[in-house]
């Protein structure tokens, strides 16, 4: 199938869904409106709400806050994950001692931490960053740990025979291997950074996309809720394509599934 046909079909799905939504929420079927506007709003209202946000400029402040929280959560969580992952992988004893606690902490649904973070860190951005960090950290940690442990024996021996010191093995062998594992989970960890920020905002804050959605819900403004969700989706997709670009640059050396071998 050509790209154009594919794109046309993809657009068609959206058009059909939106048209159905508009139709069922405004035109009665057998004397009854199937999607009552109070619960489902309608595309026109949602769209005009989005336009209003962008026209008045209020949305930018909220987007900027959510973006900033996500970035902080991602950076802090990744740095901590890389450091601890490296440390555990190189110190099997430490890893063995902490293993049950790491598993326990990771098993905990992070949402329950949100009120505690709000209590500790206030309703500003840091309680949201903290929530995101707890999500990002474990993904990066597990991947880096794996990446360091699964370095090929032969590649390591080769490094040694070429005369690498422990520090040089770190830099030329362990580090790139760990990073490649980390980057392969980049989409997930960036996604979770955003989830942490938005969920945190939703549960208690004064700004951000999560706050916007929560506010609309508070006054039964369904159009506002849907508008917030659409803006959030677009925001995530934008960030995700940014990640794809970064990934392409950083992982050029990795074979893709389509590559031939031999």
């Amino acid at each position, binding site marked *: 199938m050509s790209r154009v046909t594919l794109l046309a079909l993809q657009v068609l799905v959206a058009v059909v869904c939106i048209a159905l939504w508009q139709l069922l929420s405004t035109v009665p079927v057998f004397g009854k409106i199937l999607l009552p506007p109070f619960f489902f709003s309608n595309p026109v209202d949602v769209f005009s709400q989005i336009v209003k946000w962008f026209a008045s400029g209020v949305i930018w402040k909220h987007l900027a806050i959510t973006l900033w929280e996500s970035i902080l959560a991602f950076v802090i969580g990744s740095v901590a994950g890389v450091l601890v992952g490296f440390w555990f992988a190189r110190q099997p004893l430490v890893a063995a001692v902490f293993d049950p606690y790491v598993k326990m902490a990771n098993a905990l649904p992070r949402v329950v931490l949100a009120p505690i973070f709000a209590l500790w860190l206030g309703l500003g951005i840091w309680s949201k960053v903290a929530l995101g960090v707890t999500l990002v950290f474990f993904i990066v940690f597990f991947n880096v740990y794996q990446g360091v442990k699964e370095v*090929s024996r*032969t*590649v390591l*021996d*080769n*490094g*040694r*025979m*070429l*005369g*690498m*010191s422990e520090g*040089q093995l770190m830099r*030329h*062998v362990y580090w*790139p*291997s760990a990073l*490649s594992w980390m980057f392969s989970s980049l989409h997930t960890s960036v996604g979770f950074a955003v989830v942490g920020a938005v969920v945190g905002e939703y549960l208690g804050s004064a700004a951000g996309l999560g706050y916007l959605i929560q506010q609309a819900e508070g006054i039964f403004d369904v159009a506002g809720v849907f508008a917030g969700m659409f803006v959030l989706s677009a925001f995530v997709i934008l960030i995700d394509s940014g990640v794809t670009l970064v990934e392409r640059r950083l992982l*050029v*050396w*990795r*074979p893709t599934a389509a*590559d031939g*071998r*031999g």
Partner: protein
Amino acid sequence: MTTPTAVALEDAKVAFRLGDGRVYTAVEKAHLAVAQGEFVAIVGPTGCGKSTLLNVAAGLLKPAAGSVKIFDRPLAGLNRDAGYLFQADALFPWKTALDNVAIGLEIKGTPRSEVLPQAQKWLTSVGLGAFAGRYPHMLSGGQRKRVALAQVLIRDPKILLMDEPFGPLDAQTRQVMGNLLLDLWNADRKAVLFVTHDLEEAIALADRVVIMSAGPSSRIIGDWRVQLARPRDIFEVRMDKEFHALHREIWSVLKDEVMKGYAQSTHAAEAV
């Protein structure tokens, strides 16, 4: 003056502790000397302990008994005089071909601006001058082996350890690589310990061919000198009458070991 001995294994024994606590003796009473400038090939059935022996010479494995001497000095730790061409893929997948070759000098602290032209030169001499920017996964098996060869040679090691370097390649590529290796070796005649399961390849390349028996407790059971004139061409040397005579002689010994090795490995599989 006698030529110094580059690698000397004296009564080396290597044992592995298996998962279930038993001990598997892979190689026993291995006695082998490689003189400076000498090209020695080791041939034996699969699983007899050829890679193990090279690892001992490289210092990656410590023998359970016996000694390893490098230029008459007991080997402690890694063998810093040796370059090792591994049987499995050992290139750094995150480095380009050029960087893979350059790394050997870079880690010595030579500035990159000096290293890169040399790395390029070595890539060219293994016939991959145009592939400098490729990552290992973009190269064929034979090309990867050539990059690995350049990676080892750029450090100018006094001893070259090669573990079935042409193993996974097709017959034609093997011969091309063999000639390439002989050309490079002819330039400065390093001591070479070359492992192969291909007897013809061993005779065509080496000054001496050493045969190992089937494991466990594999030993060196034969040592033949190859008197074919140098420089050699791998294609032509195989037509030589002397080549055939030697091949027949060594094969009569090797054949029994190959059969034994095969029988033992199937037995072992049945026992499991």
